[in-house]
């Protein structure tokens, strides 16, 4: 039977110029409050359109209004505050450190309203929501609460679980959990030991396709082994940025029972990725990973390159996935071709 293949951009997009300016003008008080919401919808429709036109099976809303992956949750939860800036992994991009002064208490949902607002626009593709993983959230925050780290992490997982359940109820078909901290070579065993419990809490009662993503590097072997035991359906392997590292990992450890989602398009440079190189990587990976299904994605979010390149990389992902599938005999799912 042919391998089933599909594609999906990993996460958020860069903001288009008109939205950047609108947000700036709101801050300056020169644009009526609320108008930026309308412009956000227009911008979101644009990135959704780009994903649909490129044949993505799972589509995100682009998270264009998120200042960083944690912020919408930090702002919607009581007992958490955004503080100073800190560099986000090896990027010249900074996130605001969440400060926890107690258990997070959600005051409003973040994902579900977005799903309701955009799911019709996304049809016939399916909506994917993305959240920061509870381990990354905990370790990149400052804990000023009286809770031990493990307890705080669990309470974060619980709050995120509520988000996911509501998003799925609203119509999200896929949920992606981003745990970039897993690539940290200094991640301690104590920290990784809590991840199984966190994921149990996180996914309790969540009936959707579950994807785990990590990026900006390659996890250590012992961490990767632990990752393979987590209760997710699919695992993102961002090949494009570290082909050797990931090929070694999958050759040695495989991908367990997870569906591999291969990050074939480099989301942090502005080159057009070399097709032959991508094809060789996919062939080599799939020679090792005996799978009935494969996903194709970008190596990280598309928010770290200029807007026009984030659209171009989306097109490249779609085109390459389709051509690859044709050449390698995969059964490629392009939702737009169904109709």
């Amino acid at each position, binding site marked *: 039977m042919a391998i089933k293949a599909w594609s999906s951009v990993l996460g958020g997009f*860069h*903001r288009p*110029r008109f939205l*950047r300016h609108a*947000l*700036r003008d709101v*801050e300056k008080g020169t644009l009526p409050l609320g108008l930026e919401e309308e412009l956000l919808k227009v911008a979101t429709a644009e990135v959704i359109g780009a994903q649909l036109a490129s044949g993505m099976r799972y589509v995100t809303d682009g998270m264009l209004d998120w*200042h*960083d992956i944690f912020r919408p949750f930090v702002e919607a939860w009581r007992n958490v505050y955004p*503080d*100073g*800036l*800190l*560099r986000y*992994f*090896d*990027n*010249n*991009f*900074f*996130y*605001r450190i969440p400060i926890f002064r107690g258990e997070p208490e959600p005051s409003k949902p973040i994902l579900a309203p977005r799903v309701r607002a955009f799911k019709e626009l996304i049809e016939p593709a399916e909506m994917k929501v993305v959240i920061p993983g509870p381990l990354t959230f905990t370790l990149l925050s400052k804990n000023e609460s009286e809770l031990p780290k493990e307890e705080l992490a669990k309470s974060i997982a619980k709050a995120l679980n509520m988000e996911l359940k509501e998003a799925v109820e609203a119509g999200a078909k896929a949920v992606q959990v981003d745990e970039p901290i897993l690539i940290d070579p*200094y991640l301690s065993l104590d920290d990784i030991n809590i991840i199984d419990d966190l994921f149990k809490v996180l996914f309790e009662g969540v009936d959707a396709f579950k994807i785990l993503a990590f990026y900006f590097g390659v996890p250590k072997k012992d961490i990767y082994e632990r990752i393979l035991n987590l209760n997710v359906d699919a695992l993102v392997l961002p090949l494009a940025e570290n082909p050797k590292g990931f090929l070694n990992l999958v050759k040695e450890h495989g991908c367990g029972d997870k569906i591999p989602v291969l990050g074939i398009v480099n989301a942090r*440079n*502005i*080159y057009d990725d070399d097709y032959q190189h991508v094809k060789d990587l996919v062939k080599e990976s799939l020679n090792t990973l005996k799978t009935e299904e494969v996903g194709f994605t970008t190596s990280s979010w598309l*928010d*770290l*390159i*200029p*807007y*026009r*390149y984030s659209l171009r990389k989306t097109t490249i992902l779609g085109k390459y996935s389709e051509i690859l599938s044709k050449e390698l005999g995969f059964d490629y799912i392009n939702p737009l071709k169904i109709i």
Partner: protein
Amino acid sequence: MSGFEVPKKFPTTVVGSYPKLDPAPEVLRRYRKREIDDKELHELIKPAIKEVINDYLWAGVDIVSDGEQSREDMVVYFAERMKGYTVGDWVRIFDNTYFRRPVIYDKVEWKTPMTIEDWEYARSISQGRPVKAILTGPYTMVEWSFDLHYKDKREAVLDMAKVMRREVEEYLKRGVKYVQIDEPALSTRPWREDAELVKEALEIIFKGVSAKRIVHICFGRLERILPYILDYPVDQFDLEFKNSNFRLLPFLKEYGFDKELGYGVIDVHSLQVESVNEIIKDIEKLMKLDIIGPEKVYVDPDCGLKRLPREIARAKLKNMVEAAKIARERW
């Protein structure tokens, strides 16, 4: 020049950038729109530099900077002034703030002095206080650009080092006393091979340089790269401590650190002004470990102050200087 002398113990300094003061924002806006050229930029920016220097003098900082008032960004500024670069498109740094990440499209080469004019002006009004020459390091320049030419990081970084070396030569002709190379990107990639590449680059930049040679690195897991950088050809490491809660201190002890230290005691990402007492206690943390003597400790903020409101930046510097004075009595 007046007879100002830098204190022998705990001299105070700054890492470089300062909040953009009037008329810098408007001048930079006009420059971006090409309404004024480079020459006009440096002329029109002078009142802002004067304000920065006034703040430093008011606070009592010993070794100052021009506040990087002409620099829209630490990478873009240099990229616009050397061969081999083209203007990039906007990418986000944080929140809704962006920089035009430049694109290397050809071999990078030095064209003309890039930073001298502002530095000379700052020096002319600093009442004898030395003004640091501050350049973005070659590794950071390359890491934070898009590279469409080299496709080999080492080659790009070493070519970039030659550009910066040429700029340093301009300073040496003018009698510079302190040259600082900023390499914040290094701490985000704490790998031996990257640290060694930076060392090669610094060897190019600092070869035969008699001025104080400083490298500034901040925000990241500095303890991871420390073992790889101790033999850099520099006199001083200027490092961030406050923001990371002085996590690095025991590692300095462990690795037998014996160079001069730019000791970051001001958190540039926090609006809370550190009190004099708090800063003294933070200096005490270092002195207690008996790693280096007070003559090797330069008290300064973790990094540039550009993201802070001016009043906060001033207040932080004032307290830092006060604390250094007390430290001089104590140690």
